[in-house]
Each structure stands twice: as structure tokens, then as C-alpha cells.
């Protein structure tokens, strides 16, 4: 065989193996905790859109479609051998972490990600805006606020509350927090907390915000005691919150897709967890006026949406 023919054969062989068995899979497996949950599904949809635009193949696994999710997921991972697994929600992340500890994992929509086991370098997009960002906005709007209060559950939000307290200290804001284990404790906790604070802050704690009744209790108590409410999401504006800064859900999906592609290309250090890139600031002018609250007029420039009494 002439050397030129040998080289051709070699090139053909390399091309064949590169195109088949030896090719590195860049498939992304999306594991959704519960597809009927709007936030999870919106994030999944946006994530898939960006991947499709960039010609990244993806497959989906919804935990609520499988009675024996552990075994089914394990089998799927073995079968598809994804380069990265995107976990939407804490349930998905916890399961995948057990089932495929050696795989590259990316998470989002997990409340207080710092409580997760991220040893070994998982990647993620946080569910909450950084506490420093939220406190800075609060301080910008209400420069005279000295003490804020919040309720939380220790199992779900301890690390996030610790981060809030640390950042608040730097801004000269005093945080009074009270841990509760059950929504039945909300009323008593608020009675104790509200007289000591200038503003109440609703954080995304799944025990405190267990149902509509717990939301109603919070707003009823704060209105009775004339305390303004600052919230992590604009869904509480309608209930009477004066200010909300919400992480944009769709952006989290798109941001996760961008991060996933960077992870695949090895451009991100292990353990990278980004804060949500998009946010919306909503001001309830009606509640603000009703409470006769002093606020920084210049801060109105940073508001995306102002809600008046007529709305």
C-alpha cells in the first residue's frame, strides 16, 4: 500500500470513529421536578428553545411521569449518556445527584441552593436574586428604613437568611428574623415581630408561604399594624406589598442554557452558581401612598412597573 493510500485510509477511519462511537456526546438531559408547575415548565421551555437555536440535542425526563423515577432515570442516563444533566427544581437535583453522581449537573429553580449538596462542582443558576442586590434596592428606595423583619423555616432558608443578615449589616440595616416550623406559628410570630420592625420582607420560603391562607395572614397582620411589605416576587403586589423585585423566570431558563453550553465547552470553572440575570422591579404606588411612606423619588427611574390604586 502506498503511503498516500494509507493516509487516506487513516483519515477515513478517524472520521468514521469521530462520527460514531468515539464522538463525545453533547446531549443535554433535562430533568423536571414537576412539569405541571408553571415556573419549572417555563424554565424548561426557554432552556430548550436556546438549545435548539444552538443545535444542541436535548431529551426530557419529567419526574411526575414516572412511578419509579429513580430506576427509570438511571436507565435513561445509561442509555443516552448525556454530557450534562439540567435539573429543574430541588427534587430533580436531589434525585439526579444520587443517581448520577459522576455526571456534570446544572440546576435552577431550587430554593436556597446553598442547602444543596454541590460537592464535586455542580453548576447552577440561583433561584433568588442575591441578597445584596435585594437589600441595595430596598436601601435605595427607603433610605430611612432601619429594621426589617422576616419569617423563615430553618430547613429551607437558613443559609439564605444568614446571607441576608450579613449583607444587611454592611448596609446598616438591622434584620430581625424568626424561624417557624408550621404555618400555625405565623400569626404568633408576626405579632411578636411586627412591632419591632419598620418593614416586613417576604422571602421565598416554602413553609412560610404554604398556602393562600398564610399569605392572607401575613398581609392582614401587616396592614393592621401599618407595616410595609417588601417581596421577592411581584405576585405579592396585588396582595398589598409596596415593592417587589422578581427574578425573571424565562430569563433563568435562557441563562441556564447559556451556562450549559459554556460548561460543555469547558469555559466555566466547576462550582459556578450564577445569580439570575433578569429582574423586574414593581412598585405599588397605592400601598405606598396609603402608608404615607417616605421614599427616594430618584429611585423611580429603576422601577419597571408602577401599580396604582386604579389597577
Amino acid at each position, binding site marked *: 500500500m502506498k503511503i498516500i493510500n494509507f493516509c487516506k485510509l487513516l483519515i477515513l477511519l478517524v472520521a468514521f470513529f469521530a462520527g460514531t462511537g468515539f464522538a463525545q456526546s453533547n446531549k443535554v438531559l433535562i430533568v423536571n421536578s414537576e412539569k405541571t*408547575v408553571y415556573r419549572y415548565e417555563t424554565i424548561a421551555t426557554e432552556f430548550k428553545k436556546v438549545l435548539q437555536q444552538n443545535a444542541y440535542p436535548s431529551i426530557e425526563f419529567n419526574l411526575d411521569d414516572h412511578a419509579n423515577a429513580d430506576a427509570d432515570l438511571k436507565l435513561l442516563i445509561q442509555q443516552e449518556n448525556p454530557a450534562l444533566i439540567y435539573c429543574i427544581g430541588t427534587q430533580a437535583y436531589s434525585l439526579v445527584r444520587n443517581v448520577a453522581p459522576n455526571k456534570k449537573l446544572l440546576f435552577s429553580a431550587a430554593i436556597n441552593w446553598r442547602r444543596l449538596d454541590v460537592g464535586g462542582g455542580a453548576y447552577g443558576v440561583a433561584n433568588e436574586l442575591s441578597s445584596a442586590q435585594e437589600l441595595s434596592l430596598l436601601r435605595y428606595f427607603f433610605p430611612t428604613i432601619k429594621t426589617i423583619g422576616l419569617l423563615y423555616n430553618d430547613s429551607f432558608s437558613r443559609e439564605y437568611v444568614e446571607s441576608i443578615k450579613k449583607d444587611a449589616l454592611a448596609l446598616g440595616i438591622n434584620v430581625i428574623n424568626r424561624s417557624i416550623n408550621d404555618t400555625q406559628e405565623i400569626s404568633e410570630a408576626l405579632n411578636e415581630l411586627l412591632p419591632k420592625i419598620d418593614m416586613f420582607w417576604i422571602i421565598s420560603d416554602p413553609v412560610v408561604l404554604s398556602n393562600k391562607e398564610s399569605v392572607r395572614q401575613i398581609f392582614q397582620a401587616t396592614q393592621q399594624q401599618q407595616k410595609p411589605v417588601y417581596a421577592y416576587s411581584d405576585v405579592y403586589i396585588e396582595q398589598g406589598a409596596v415593592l417587589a423585585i422578581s427574578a425573571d423566570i424565562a430569563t433563568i431558563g435562557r441563562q441556564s442554557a447559556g451556562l450549559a453550553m459554556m460548561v460543555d465547552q469547558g469555559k466555566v470553572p466547576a462550582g459556578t452558581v450564577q445569580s439570575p440575570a433578569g429582574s423586574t422591579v414593581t412598585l405599588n404606588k397605592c400601598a405606598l401612598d396609603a402608608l404615607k411612606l417616605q421614599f427616594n423619588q430618584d429611585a423611580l427611574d429603576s422601577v419597571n412597573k408602577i401599580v396604582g390604586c386604579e389597577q
Partner: protein
Amino acid sequence: MIKYLATLLVVGVLLLNSSAYANESAEHDSLEKELAYLAAERKVVVTASKMAEHVDKTVATTTVITQDDITHIGARNLLDVLRLVPGIGITQTNIGIRKIEVRGVSTQLSEKVQIMLNGHPLDHNLQNAGSTWVYDDLPVDTIKRVEVVRGPGSALYGANSFLAVINIITQNAKDLNGLHTSAGWGSFDTQQYRASWGKQFDNSAEAALHFNFTDTNGIKSPIPADSLSIQGLSSNAPGRSQLTEGRYDLEWQLGYKDFKVDGRFIDKKTGAFFNAAPILSDSRTKQNYTDYFLRLSRTWKIQDKFTVDTQIFHDFFSADNIWQNAPSLFSHSGFQDTRTGGEIQANYHFSNDQTLISGFSYAKEQQGNLIEESGPDPQHFMPAALTTQERTRKRWGVYVEDVWDPLTNLRLTVGARYDRYNDFGGTFNPRMGFNWEVFKNYSLKFSYGTAYRAPAFGELAAANNDILRGNPTLNPEEVKTFEAGIIAHPIKGLTAQTTYFHSAINQIISRVSPCPVQSCIGNSGSVLAEGVELEARYDFDESLQGSYIGANHVVQRSIQLGQQLADVPRHRTNLTANWAFDKTWSSFAHVLLKGDTLRIPGDTRNSVPGYGIVDLGLLGKNLFDKKVDVGFNIYNLFDKRYYDPAPANLSFVGDYQMPGIAFFGHVSVKF
């Protein structure tokens, strides 16, 4: 025109109203969506699991065998699983149960190893100690995980966690989520059947039930001669071992909110491998064992950081055995043991980095309903003098352990336990160690601990026996163990571990002289055991995911009175490989290489030669719409003839011949 304007006005008002309503509805919808999201997140409490230590971070030397591993191994029973663990060896005894050698120490009843089921100790036989009486051949298809902690565990678990703690975790309601059945058939007319059902109910109640049935004719090992045949007297030898066995197990786990009731019932009927006496018994030697435990537990959440676990339990063990002591002399002996008690354990999480646990336990142990008869055959027994006593023992213990991570790469563990017995007094056992990730993926661990083994009732009270006399003044056996090791993950998928251990066992409960009968029991002598355990496993990724190769090798020496202990090899190696052909089919191979084992001083027989055996398995998972698993295993593929050591005092000619090539196949179906 007016009519037209009025209509337009009404429509306009309706439209405005519907728009306002739509806005309001959308707001409520948004809140509902948000609350639905929070409810979904509420389903997983991650911090609750942080009490369980990761294998890499624990200071103890731990091996975890998962359900997946067990399926690939093709294990027929618990000891088939344990024989792959570094530092552990399994050998045959004359009476039928097999013994567990741990780190160079092997005893007939494996009483220095604590076996637990879902955290509950199984050393229910108070007369003779040990947990292997009914748990050596525990069926494995209901097991979720086996955790083997080598080294002393008395600082947490109290008595008999001397050389190792083996915790068997079985499948719960969530794991089952329906009906699982399996059936297995194999050599020696072995058949195994299993049915498990589990369900989680909407009102937070859950239930899991397991049923197992096993029947086998045993390995029918050839017995060429016994003490009678070598004298030319009438004997069953040459013949074959009569290790037939039938057993059934029923396990239950019922939970409602923070309450849980669990337990397991076992009924086991078996023959003997050789005999308790130095003659080959026939099929009239029968061992009947009943074992159960019932536990009621509750976890109290005082605060998020502070929980209290409480439990009360009742354990039961009974033996009703017929032994052939001579061709026309049979003995019938039996007893019933109970242990009733409770435990309270407080768990306080100071922070994510520090957890303190402390507890108090109390138990009352009783032995009664003694049977002692003898006769020319099992149909004609006459009462005989009791060879043991009815006894009651009360004991309590207090313990505390602190697990603290002062740095993200450093874990310190310090703990101690004090136990008080009404018969032999008190014993204090500390444990301490650290696990330090010196470089990323490279951890150094060190630990020191002591443990004790409480004298069994048989050792305290053996009487009316021409061969053996008990000693009511016995003290517990003691062991001090120091170990150091390195765990490394040099490349992705590879885990390697090296552990050096050094154990000094003192006050060994053994036969001593001078003595008015053949031997008496006393605290005498010491053993020094040390060695190095090397283990590595590489899990393939990408297209070979599910495949792995592993190896472990132990080099050990156990010295008593300046000589290597009998019946224990100086080295042993396990090589394993699992090859996943595709998403369904995989093949498993295991090679066991065992070194020669020496005889006791004075036994002039040659050493028991070492051997190498190969096992092979084929597994198909998730067939027929993921409902069916099938497996087929070949043990001792090359039909290697090999032997486990027989003791000298039985006048056994040669050693115990172990089975040649054997097969086992199983089918599992999920509904």
C-alpha cells in the same frame, strides 16, 4: 339608534367588567402558580439527610454495597455479598452456620461482629452470642444497601460491635411502590421465592411488607471419615454433609407521620454440615431457630436543629435442636432468649458544620424455657441435667458523639460510651478520629477506638458438661484499634483507598486450664492483628456507563503467643468486573484468591492450601416494559476443589470440601 347605543353601552360595560375580572383572575392565578411552585420545592428537605455521613468523609473504614451491586454479584444470601468486602472472609463451620472473619480474626460464632437490620442489633442469641445463627443466609433480594464499617463500634452501638458493624438496610414503601416478586432456582435443589409490597398513602401513612422463602438440600460435601470410622467402628462416614435448610422470613415496616413500627420474623430449620460432636451426623440432627424483633420508634422534632429519636423494642430468639452425639445417642436442647428495652437519642445540629448526638439505652435480657434431654433416638428422649441456666441481665448505657467540620476539608469525630451490666460491671469505650482532605480529591483519615464483647450466657453459665464449664466471673473482651488511611480520587470515576489497621485484643474469652473438666472458660490471652487493606474501583462513564472494575487486597497477620492465628489467611484478593453491554444486559465476573491458612499449634496437619475461584454472572434488567429482571450466575466456574479449615478437636480427616461448580438463576417481576 338609541337601541343601538344602549346595546353598545351594555356590551362595553360587559367587556370592561370582564377585562377587570380577567386582570384579577390573572393575579390570583399568578399567586397560585407561585404557591404551587413553593409546594413542589417543599417536598424535598435536603438538610435532614446531612446526619448521614458520606463514605468519603467518615473517619471509619466503610464499604457500602448497593442494591445494584448485589444484583450484579448474583448473591444468594448475605454472606455472598460480604465475601467481596475487603478484610472479610467467609468459611464453613462444622455445625452449619458459616463464620465471618474480619481483619484476621475468625471465631466459630462470629460473635465479634455486630449485624444490624435497619439499625437494630441482631445478636439475639444470648446463650451463644453472634448474629449468624439465622442471618448468615439472609435472602438479599429485599436489601437496598449493606453498610460495612470495619473497626470498633462500641462507642456508638455498645456491646459486640467489636471488629465490625454490618448494617443491612431493606427496601421501604417508597422503594417498592407496588408489588415485587422474584423466584430463584439453583444447584443443590435450591429454591428462593420472594414477594414484597409497599405503598405510600396520601395521609402520610406508609407500609412495606416482605416475605421470603428459601429451601435447599445443601452442598452435600463429601465427609470421608470421622472419629468412629477411623477406628473401624460403625459410622455414617464416609458420607455427605446434611446441610439441608428451609426458612421463611417476614418483615414489616409501617409508618404514620413520625411513628414507625418495624421488625422481622424468621423461622429457620437446618441440618448440620458435620456435627457438634466428632462424628458425622445423619439427617436426624436438626436445628430449629425462631428469631424476631419488634420495634416502635418515633422521631420528635423539637426544633429544626434539635430532634429526638425514641424507640422501644422486643427481641426474641429460640433454639430447639437435636444433635446426634453418637450413633445411638441423641441430645435435645433448647432455650428462649428475650431482650426488651428502649433507647432515646438526641440529635443537635449546632450548625451545618457540627452535630452532636447523645443517648441513653436500657435493656433487660432474659433466658428461660430451657430444654435438656437425651436418648437413643429422637423418639425416646429422657430429661437430662441442664447444661446452662436461666439468667436475667440488665444493662444500660449512655453515649455522646460530636461530628465537627472546623474547616471545609476537615472532619473531627469524638465520642464515647459507658455501659453498665448487672453481672460484670461497667465498661467505657471512646472513639476519635479525623478525616482531612489534604489536597483536592486526596483525604487522609485516622481513628482510634475501643470496643467490648459482653460474655454470653453460655460462657457464664455452662454447667453439667463433662467437656466445658462456664465462669460467672468473666469480664468482657476488649479491643483497642488504631487505623490510618488514604482515600483518593485521582481521576474521574476512580476511587482508591488504603487502610492500615492495628488491633490489640485482650481478655479473650476462651478455654483455659487448669480445670477439673476438659476445659473451663476464662479471660485469657491476647491477640495482635494488623494489616493493610487496599481497594480500588473504577466506574466507566460515557458509552460504558454501568461498567466497572474493582479490586481489593488485604495483607494481614494475627499473632497469638508469638504465632500466626490458625484458620486465617495472610492475604486475600478480590477482583471484580461488571460489563454493561447495553442498557439491558450486563455481565459480572469475580475472582477470589485466598492464601494458605495455618493450623493451631500442635496440629501437625499441613496448612490448608490457598485457592483461586472464579464466579461469572449474566444479568438482564428492565426487560418487558421494564417489569422483568433475569439473572444467571455460575459459581466456581472452573470447578476448583478447595477446602475450608476443619478444627483439630473434631478428629475430622482432612478439611471441609467446598462446593464445585454451581448455578443459580433468578427472575424478578414488578407489578
